[in-house]
């Protein structure tokens, strides 16, 4: 009940603030799809084979609802989804996992669902008004990760835990008064990922090099998520609803 009141209060405040804003021809709500992508340098993306695959890309799909709350600011909620192959090349082939030794592809896939919110500040210098123009955006996301074994078609792990904060620079362009094109560059820090990556490194440098506990698996997956989301380019298409 308390949450409901809180939500109503927030929405009321937002709508009051937004009443005095022009938006674009009065349209303040934007439904936006962003395709974020990052070059996969020495990690695998979802489809690529084992080994170093420069030039391949990792993708994250993002859907967002963005609302203009002042002449220069818009706030948004977003949902993102990405998937990737988890590189398990340090698995001891003689242990329980040796069933994979003949596979060409790494069978472990991570599916990361993120929800988050963001605030976009449109540059005050260039006389643009939200939701159009160059902007800087700050965002925070929480991720739900699902790890699946595609070979055995079984779920290996699923958990909440990762969250990220980030910043992006971009530009939103409106065409035909209704369609929005968004492009830019985004950087995210998946906070547990930093720590986990360090664990992985230590683990890799340990004498036996084996990882056989679920937490180690998480470390590897989170590390991958951290790498993927660290720097991404984005290209989006939006619709100015009302």
């Amino acid at each position: 009940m308390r949450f409901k009141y809180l939500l109503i209060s927030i929405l009321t405040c937002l709508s009051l603030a937004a009443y005095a804003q022009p938006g674009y021809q009065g349209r303040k709500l934007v439904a936006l799809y962003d395709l974020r992508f990052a070059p996969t340098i020495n990690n695998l993306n979802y489809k690529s084979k084992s080994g170093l695959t420069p030039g391949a890309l990792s993708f994250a799909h993002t859907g967002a609802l963005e609302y203009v709350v002042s002449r220069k600011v818009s706030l948004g909620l977003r949902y993102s989804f990405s998937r990737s192959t988890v590189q398990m090349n340090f698995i001891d082939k003689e242990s329980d996992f040796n069933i994979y030794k003949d596979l060409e592809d790494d069978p472990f896939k991570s599916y990361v669902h993120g929800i988050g919110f963001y605030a976009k500040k449109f540059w005050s210098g260039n006389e643009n008004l939200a939701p159009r123009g160059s902007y800087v955006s700050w965002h925070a996301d929480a991720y739900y990760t699902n790890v699946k074994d595609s070979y055995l078609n079984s779920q290996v792990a699923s958990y909440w835990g990762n969250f990220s904060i980030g910043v992006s620079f971009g530009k939103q362009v409106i065409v035909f008064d209704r369609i929005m094109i968004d492009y830019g560059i985004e950087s995210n820090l998946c906070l547990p990922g930093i720590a986990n990556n360090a664990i992985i490194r230590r683990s890799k440098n340990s004498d036996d090099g084996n990882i056989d506990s679920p937490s180690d698996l998480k470390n590897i997956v989170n590390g991958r998520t951290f790498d993927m989301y660290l720097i991404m380019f984005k290209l989006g298409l939006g619709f100015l609803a009302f």
Partner: protein
Amino acid sequence: MEFLSNTLKWLSLGILSLSLANAQDFEHFKPLRADGNIPQEFLLLSSEKYSQQLDNLSKDPNRGKGYERRAKKDFSLKNSFEMREFLYSGKVIFNDPISIYVNKVANEILKFEPELNGKVKFLTIKATEVNAFATHEGLIFVNEGMIAQLENEAQLAFVLCHELVHYKKNHVMNSYVEGVRISKRKTEYKSLSDDKKHWAKNRYSRELETEADMEGLTIFLKTKYSIKSLERFFDVLQYSYLPYDDAQFKKSFFETTTFKLPESYFLDKVKPIASIDEENEEKSTHPSIKNRRAYVAEITKRQTSNRVEKDYIVSEKEFFNTRKIARYDMVATYLSELDYPEALYSSYLLLQEDPNNLYAKKGVAKSLYGLAKYANEGRINKVLESYQNIEGNSQQLYFLLDKLRAEELNAIALKYCWNLKNKYPDQEDLKAYTDDLFKSLVFNHYSSSTLFSSSPYVPVKPGKTEEVKSKYDKIKSSQDSSLTDQNFIKYAFVDELKQSEFTTKFDELASQKRESDKLKSDPVAAKKLRKAKKKEARIVRKKGYALGLDKVVVFNPFYQKRDQRKKNSERYLTQENAELKLEDRIEKNAQLAKLDVTVINDLELKPTDIQKYNDLSFMMVWLQERVSHYDNQVKMQNLDYEYVDELTKRYNTSNFSWMGVIGMHEKKNGVGMLIATTAFVWYLLPYTVYYVATPKYDTYYVQMLFDIKTGEAKLTQAKYIDDKDSRTVINMNIYDSFYQMKTSRNK
């Protein structure tokens, strides 16, 4: 018989009413406006005119080749677009009394040049300079300043003959093509140095002027107009920089029995009138008046003595009436040009002829009001030329205005306006000027009426001073007893202070001033005020203005397109197209913002839209005047109060907005340097490729919303957008302007 008598009665009544309609009421003179149907030349789009001119050019066997042909095409383009801009500058009128008379005189001339019949049109420009000019397409413009100075109809006929030759001989285009030839150093100009180019252009222009004089004279001699009048015509030209009359400015003009101006504010002798005739023709586009006089005299000498000589063919009465109209209208023109001293002197001259003329008196009041307002802001130099540059009797007025301090000018202006307002209580404008001057007098200069003397100045008779005992009493007594530069203004309101209305008003304003001072000196209140202002500024920055308006008139929206990479940067053809679309965008965004917007646009006018044409013309001049006040930070009431009132009633709003877009394709600087640097610093390559491959566009958006009743700028936006002038950029800004106009914080 009865039928005949009735017919005659009705006929005579008809003639009477017709003559009454034509008669000008100089007492309530109204500035000239265009009348009748709008001529076709005004209605054609520039692109249509250009296309017509291209068509004519292609049929012309003398169109030339190469650069000459290109120059002619270039001229046609520029001429078509710039001429339209001029036609809608607010200065051009037609079917007004001056144009009608000029056309009648022109018809007398055209009897001898029948091939020009129907090809030329004569229009008036509301400008005070003594000038006339012809355009390539046959429009001949005569300034009202020219009409105001001419002495008879024959002189006007010669001016028209001269201009007809300019048209007939295609001088305007020839001059342009010759200019190109000189710039490109073609034919005989091959060895011309850069500094001589300008002189060569002037020489060619003088040749054309001489040809217009000579051939114009040939046409003139075919008519029955008097040759003798031409000698005096060159006097008109020679002294054209002076007002239309040179009457002594009397000291008594601002004085009353109780108020006298100090002697030191008047010159013993004014600067004598010299001649401005150019001795060195090289610098001028026209031959010297001395030379023109000489060769015209040479030709006229050869004329037979039995030639019929008339100063007037159309009508002497109509000439003088038209000239009088021009002189009256010039007061309004001077006022709109912020030339208050000339407006004042012209009004003074009108009052010499008709001392009780209300229009002329209001001209004085408006001029004094303008001068006082500028003086109060310390910007009198913006509207008052140095008296040292003025020749003749008007120098006296310039000297007086130069000597008067701001507070003195304010007091004199108030005195004049107050008394005029009392005499004509129904004149709303006089009331507005008086109120404004009163307020500025009390708030800026004199906070109490006791600072003015309520009894007249009485010079102390010699002998009485002997009663004064000490040295200091003597000094004080001497200061009090003589009328000096310092104390004369003390006696400005001796008569007015006897009127209770005046003293009450003074006391009211003084009380307001005390309250305001108290508020300013109270640190708590001042802090509160500062805080409130800061808060308001913050809200405006975040949310914009919220004016809560329901209706706005957008007049003459403009669109300019420029390509800075090219020598001739104006993109005329695309510009007109964009301007046509702009009106649709304005209307659409107004609908979206739920604001009632009326657009008055010159591109949409129909022949019968004369009212709209006049409204547009008025607003263009008004805007120019208002922007000058705005630049000079002077807040002023309207000087053409009546037309503003009419406009407000006609459109049911006093909110008028002027908006426009300038789209620039910019020239990129330093491309070569960047490429050279990239050869050494290879990682700059992506940026270099991006910089070189992408065009650079900028957009400027301008919007000024005025309350034309008060002259207050309610919302001014001048935005630079680092982007192309796309539909989105334009829509975004127009909508934002309308949104800020419409929305209200209370909602």
